[in-house]
């Protein structure tokens, strides 16, 4: 790849007269030695998997093997349809879809890791709800996934994207930044605005620990995906309105690295602290062990 930071990415887009998604497709083709058509086709398949996961999570039983989670996406959707929700339609829809994909993941269904399985709901939640709302075609969405991938590539190589290394900020936080930046571009924002959206989003999740109850990708992972989709929409709106990340986004990514590196091991996907070690979290873990 010819860029290592988000500011380099924005400059490169300007030089080549391309959006982030179109530029990432070119860069990916150069890196892999495969044609742009082949790489686009693979990403299209992945988008198909995301759609299937949303559909499944909205219509099928998603009770997890532990029995702890499932069907919350359908609860949210039913509430959205019957009542006047606090958030309003489109954000509620993104939230429901994000919960749906995360619940499919927890019940051993098929998903795309974006960037990980623990944060797999956010990008599909944002992308599918916006596709329905704005009438975008699939190719437009797939180009958007390349934009999200470009942003994730910078975050992953300058910081981290796994909870074991950097806490939940690295998984859910990265996914929100990727979704926010990609959506900003898809809504007509410039690459510079998209980069601001990433910084705005990441600042909101700095410090978030990874504390899965029972060590399972269920509590609190699933609801954090739901919240994450809503936050991504908010960050994109701020950036499109002209709000800037005063601390440049590349510097925010370095802060995520600093904070994650300082995070104690018990807060990095070991179930040794946080929600996992509350009295209720410990009781759930004990019950799970006895169930076996």
């Amino acid at each position, binding site marked *: 790849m010819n860029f290592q930071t988000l500011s380099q990415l924005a400059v490169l887009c300007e030089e080549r007269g391309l959006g982030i998604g179109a530029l990432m497709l070119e860069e990916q083709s150069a890196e892999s030695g495969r044609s742009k058509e082949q790489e686009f086709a693979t990403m299209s398949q*992945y988008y198909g998997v995301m759609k299937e996961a949303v559909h499944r999570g909205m219509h099928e039983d998603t009770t997890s*093997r532990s029995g702890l989670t499932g069907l919350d996406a359908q609860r949210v959707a039913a509430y959205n349809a019957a009542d006047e929700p606090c958030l309003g339609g489109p954000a509620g829809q993104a939230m429901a879809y994000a919960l749906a994909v995360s619940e499919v*993941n927890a019940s051993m*269904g098929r998903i795309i*890791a974006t960037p990980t399985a623990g944060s797999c709901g956010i990008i599909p939640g944002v992308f599918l709800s916006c596709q329905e709302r704005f009438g975008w075609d699939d190719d437009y969405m797939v180009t958007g996934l390349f934009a999200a991938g470009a942003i994730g590539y910078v975050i992953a190589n300058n910081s981290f994207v796994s909870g074991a290394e950097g806490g939940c900020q690295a998984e859910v936080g990265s996914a929100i930044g990727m979704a926010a930046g990609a959506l900003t571009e898809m809504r007509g924002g410039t690459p510079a605005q998209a980069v601001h959206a990433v910084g705005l989003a990441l600042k909101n999740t700095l410090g978030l620990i990874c504390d899965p109850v029972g060590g399972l990708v269920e509590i609190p992972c699933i609801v954090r995906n739901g919240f994450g989709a809503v936050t991504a929409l908010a960050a994109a709106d701020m950036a499109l309105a002209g709000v800037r990340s005063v601390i440049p986004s590349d510097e925010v990514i370095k802060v995520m690295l600093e904070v994650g590196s300082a995070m104690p091991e018990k807060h990095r996907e070991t179930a040794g602290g946080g929600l996992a070690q509350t009295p209720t979290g410990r009781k759930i873990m004990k019950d799970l062990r006895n169930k076996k």
Partner: protein
Amino acid sequence: MRFKDVFSIIGPAMVGPSSSHTAGAARIGRAARQVLGEMPRTAEVTFFGSFAATYQGHGTDRAIAGGLLDFTTDDHRLPDSIELAAEAGMEISFGQGTGLFPHPNTVRLRLTGSESGTELTLTGISIGGGNIEIVDIDGFGVKLTGMYPTVLINHMDYLGVLASVTDVMRQGQCNIGHMSLDRKNRSGAALTVLELDEAATPELLRNLRALPAVKSVKVVDLNEQAHVQKGKDITS
């Protein structure tokens, strides 16, 4: 750069719930199946560290069984793989290990081949986001990710073996991206691992097998995305 391309960020396509404990475990199982070169008749699976503590909740056992059945990370049969392995005649057992292990997510597999009866002991670690490393094969230290077409050559540690191997690769126009050799003792058994830019052709593999000091040649390739695009042209 730890992450090389867009599909290491968006991807893999996988059955949940965990990229490290499920997708990574499936890849380790599949790598072991490819190193064995056939369907295992028996499989003794030992989990260490976080794998040992949480393997049931994450379906790590099912992922390993699925990998041994040659399922990819996104195969919808993964959740039923333990039953499917039994139907296929594979005796599979799971246990928790003690003692030293190289990574919080470690699994050791002891396999017997269904046709040849060959035995294989392999240790794999899952390092996050579905990425794995095979770190030990039958007591030989290796570092194998499976994300590139990989050739494993069991040979005797004689002078000039590596030169003849690399000469075959040169003649076959196949570039080596990474290479390692470990041996049991001087002039004894050795294992050379080559990570390649392109999959080795059947002819190239034949030429490697024909070398005097070479005992066996195996191929490992876990890149599901390349399989989608090129078709399954990898033979082992």
